[in-house]
């Protein structure tokens, strides 16, 4: 395996190449641009044998992926924020038709006000579209996750689209050391896509037919069973990836959690700052840990319960602002988990890092060392808001 310094976006394009994608359909949007630019280059230079479709919008980008995947191709797309919103309608179609499309979502705040910077309002607005969702904290994880994503998506027990989330700029635009696996090894791990059904005139099938009230509930139930069941496959694939490539991944990642009484709970690159805060807190004798999810959908409830059982306090850090909701998306999952399993844990909800706002480790030290205070009538506290 060669270890190179590379911009994470370019590394993701290389990962798509290693996965031997056959159709790429994407529309450039900041901060996703470098991924698709690099892929266009790879295709134009003949380094990657794939069809690169230039489309006029994200709605078309994902629609083209749906068509190509239905025809049996391994497809890739990538977007950010408003682009994901423009794809929204098709997100459901891709998952309901059970097409194993892989998308890298470069997380970015939603307009308005127009922001190109990172937060998770885009993915959280699409969290219930039936896609498997992975989160990454660094470039190596992003590369490995793209390769794993195809293996998961195309597994006959799964057949669902996978979204690989990486934070805009803080991850997409940084240069990091990345180890690229050998092509032969990737080929052995990821065999060519062997679809169950394809659009093929030799053997005609209908996809996306009308579902009368008599059948719609059953169709949705079957889909729900598929995504719930995919968790076992995700674990299996991560384990096998570890065996083949030597880098081990878990659906839940923890840091300094052994014997900890309290923990942070967050997604994405913000975890790096939380870890710095944890190291500082540890020096002061405070035993505090971090829980982060690599797998967000399906939500790893059973595994989380086992972890939360041993904790007294959980500080949920959300990078999205719910509008008019009882709580933030991540917190809602955790609190319903705690409620239904009668966990005796104090849950606290913080919103931080909206629209690219820096949250330095000191903020997390302050959060961890002070009692939780709500923001007025809201159940959460917004970190750093000037009031």
């Amino acid at each position: 395996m060669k270890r190179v310094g590379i911009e994470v976006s370019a590394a993701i394009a290389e990962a798509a190449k290693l996965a031997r994608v056959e159709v790429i359909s994407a529309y450039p949007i900041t901060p996703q641009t470098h991924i698709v630019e690099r892929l266009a280059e790879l295709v134009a230079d003949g380094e990657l044998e794939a069809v690169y479709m230039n489309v006029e919008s994200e709605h078309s980008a994902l629609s083209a992926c749906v068509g190509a995947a239905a025809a049996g191709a391994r497809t890739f797309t990538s977007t950010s924020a408003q682009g994901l919103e423009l794809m929204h309608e098709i997100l459901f179609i891709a998952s309901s038709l059970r097409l194993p499309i892989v998308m890298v979502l470069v997380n970015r705040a939603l307009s308005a006000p127009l922001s190109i910077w990172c937060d998770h309002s885009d993915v959280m607005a699409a969290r219930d579209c039936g896609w498997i969702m992975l989160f990454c904290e660094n470039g190596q994880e992003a590369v490995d996750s793209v390769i794993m994503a195809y293996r998961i998506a195309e597994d006959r027990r799964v057949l669902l689209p996978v979204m690989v989330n990486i934070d805009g700029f803080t991850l997409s635009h940084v240069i990091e050391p990345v180890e690229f696996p050998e092509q032969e090894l990737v080929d052995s791990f990821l065999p060519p896509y062997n679809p169950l059904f394809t659009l093929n005139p030799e053997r005609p099938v209908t996809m996306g037919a009308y579902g009368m009230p008599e059948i719609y509930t059953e169709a949705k139930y079957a889909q729900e069973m598929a995504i719930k069941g995919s968790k076992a496959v995700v674990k299996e694939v991560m384990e096998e990836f570890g065996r083949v490539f030597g880098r081990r991944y878990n659906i839940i990642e923890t840091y300094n959690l052994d014997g900890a009484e309290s923990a942070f709970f967050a997604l994405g690159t913000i975890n790096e700052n939380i870890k710095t805060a944890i190291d500082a807190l540890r020096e002061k004798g405070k035993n505090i840990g971090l829980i982060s999810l690599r797998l967000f959908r399906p939500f790893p409830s059973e595994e989380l319960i086992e972890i939360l059982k041993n904790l007294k306090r959980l500080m949920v850090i959300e990078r999205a602002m719910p509008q008019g909701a009882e709580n933030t998306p991540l917190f809602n999952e955790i609190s319903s988990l705690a409620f239904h399993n009668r966990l005796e844990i104090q849950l606290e909800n913080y919103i931080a890092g909206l629209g690219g706002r820096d949250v330095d480790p000191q903020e997390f030290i302050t959060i961890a060392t002070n009692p939780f205070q709500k923001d007025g009538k809201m159940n959460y506290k917004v970190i750093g808001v000037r009031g």
Partner: protein
Amino acid sequence: MAKPMESYRWYELNVGCVIDEPGNSIVYKTGDWRIMRPQTDYSKCTKCGLCWLFCPDNAMKPNEQGFFAPDLDYCKGCGICAQECKFEAIQMVEDRK
């Protein structure tokens, strides 16, 4: 899908609800939401075939005498045939099941 929709269980559905059996729509009688049905007065009918041509459900069919009558398994009672008949040979009447 070769059996009535309401007899399917969730685990019997194809992945993605793909229909892998072409032409199976024949087993689905789509005429059951009809409340009106066309009735042809054969003394006025010229056998011109406009009703057959315009029926969006391909439900109008010629009989042995060359007159046109709706196949009630598929006729949805939309009334287009009655509208298009230039000889006012078709009346829409209440459909009593």
